[in-house]
């Protein structure tokens, strides 16, 4: 399969980038530091799932850093090759432009997964040896969910990278996407929450305030991720009473995985290179 050949080449290339190596080291240090901070006091037992579900890991570390790492890894995926000219070498070979876009999504997702898996694996080993109750299934599952979240951001970045011919615009796009989904989203959600909480509501919408908030939460990949990972670590994933919410969250992540590259591809396909 042609797009897999592209993905493998792209992974081998991206994984050798100094940026990615530095990010891996950074991530290992950070997860290690968090694990140290939340370590149990003598006589206390803490499970690894509790550590993962803590504010430090799930909120601070994963949902702010993972989008950043994913965007840094992927924003340049297509437009970088276009401006350097290596895209000409790539498209001289029998690859279609869709092979390039989707191969890039896969290759960069794998490149993104490297620092994350290493970053969780090393502290994971320490956890397993150390004082924590280690739950390997939960640990692996959580890592996979983090990879899924990262892949959604990789897809958004690759989609944007395919749609634009300008390197500068790709950088601006990645920064914009980050600010939209990470700080800004919370900044919009919080006052809305207060407003709806105090009895306000969007009378012009056929939705209740709670529904609007839930939709906002689902729409943001980090929100969907939090719903899924929280439920997963609490052993509530796909439990019958919240099944619809969880399916919606998973579908939203998959939508982010597929739609941005597809839109980027449509632009890329019709472009003169």
């Amino acid at each position, binding site marked *: 399969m042609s797009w897999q050949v592209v993905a493998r080449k792209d992974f*081998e290339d991206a994984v050798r980038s100094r940026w990615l190596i530095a990010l891996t080291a950074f991530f290992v240090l950070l997860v290690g530091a968090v694990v140290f901070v939340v370590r149990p006091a003598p006589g206390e037992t803490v499970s690894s799932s509790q550590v993962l579900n803590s504010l430090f890991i799930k909120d601070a570390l994963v949902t702010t850093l993972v989008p950043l790492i994913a965007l840094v890894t992927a924003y340049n995926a297509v437009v970088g090759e276009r401006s350097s000219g290596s895209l*000409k070498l790539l498209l001289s070979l029998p690859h279609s432009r869709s092979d390039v876009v989707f191969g890039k999504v896969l290759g960069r997702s794998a490149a993104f997964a490297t620092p994350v898996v290493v970053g969780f694996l090393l502290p994971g080993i320490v956890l397993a040896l150390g004082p924590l109750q280690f739950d390997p299934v939960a640990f692996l599952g959580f890592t996979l969910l983090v990879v899924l979240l990262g892949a959604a951001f990789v897809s958004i970045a690759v989609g944007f990278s395919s749609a634009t011919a300008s390197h500068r615009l790709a950088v601006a796009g990645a920064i914009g996407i980050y600010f939209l989904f990470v700080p800004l989203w919370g900044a919009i959600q919080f006052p809305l929450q207060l407003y709806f909480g105090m009895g306000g509501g969007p009378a012009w919408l056929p939705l209740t305030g709670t529904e609007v908030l839930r939709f906002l939460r689902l729409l943001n990949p980090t929100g969907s991720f939090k719903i899924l990972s929280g439920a997963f670590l609490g052993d509530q994933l796909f439990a019958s009473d919240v099944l619809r919410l969880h399916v919606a969250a998973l579908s939203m992540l998959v939508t982010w995985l597929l739609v941005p590259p597809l839109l980027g591809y449509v632009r890329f396909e019709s472009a003169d290179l």
Partner: protein
Amino acid sequence: MAAIELDGVTKRYGEVTAVSDLSLSVPEGAVFGFLGPNGAGKSTTINMLLDFVRPTDGTVRVLGRDAQDESVDVRRHTGVLPEGFDVYGRLTGRKHVEFALDSKEVDGDPDALLDRVGLADAAERKAGGYSKGMRQRLALAMALAGDPDLLVLDEPSSGLDPQGAKEMREIVRAEAERGATVFFSSHVLGQVEAVCDRVGILRDGQLVAEDSIDGLRDAVGGEETLVVTVDAASDEQLAAVRALEGVAGASTDGGTVTVSCDPDAKTAVIGALEEEGVTVTDFQTEEASLEDLFLAYAGDETAAQREVSR
């Protein structure tokens, strides 16, 4: 069947017309030299063969397939040395060739291909450290992977030293002997004359001549090159020469003046030079070379570019 068939192809970028109503047929097995000054539309034409760029009008067929709808299939049977490309700086030379073989889904020995282009010693080095000429060789190795039916080489000699350019010509000849069609563009003529059996000359997006080299010579008629040794001459002083009837083009490096003209125009050329105050110390005539044909077809401004490119 023609390996390359362009029919009424036009490519416009906004107001700028890069290629205008170009029709061209390259027979299978030919070594076709695609000539023209920089900016004549050569790369745009090549980019349309590879579906990097889509024609505004007209049809492009390569190896009997539609260049746009069946582009992947076209490229599966085509080896390409693109112009203005870059390598993957973090990957080794061998990785590049392996990637080309995997992409074309063919078995092949990457080391043999690298050896063929003279990069065997650099196979393990990252391509980011390669010189321009080495990058050119690497892309050629990737193009040769899988023994393509068609080789498309865009300015293949750029960045190569004379030895490299000679090796490039030898590879082109060997590929042609194997039965491949070779289509390459150049604004440097020495290389083309030595290997091509057909030539097309592009100027301002239009094909001004297409023929065999012998045919082109005949078409220009008995035109000769007059090489005049002078004390000193400037380009401005040549205006009078260029204005003469029977003169196709003229250029000077200061010490000699090279004029392609009808044999009967020679006396008038010498006269015009002396009238401009140039002292003629000697002159001789040469049989028309492709260089002169190029001068005749592509216009005088290319003479200056040719000097720069050397």
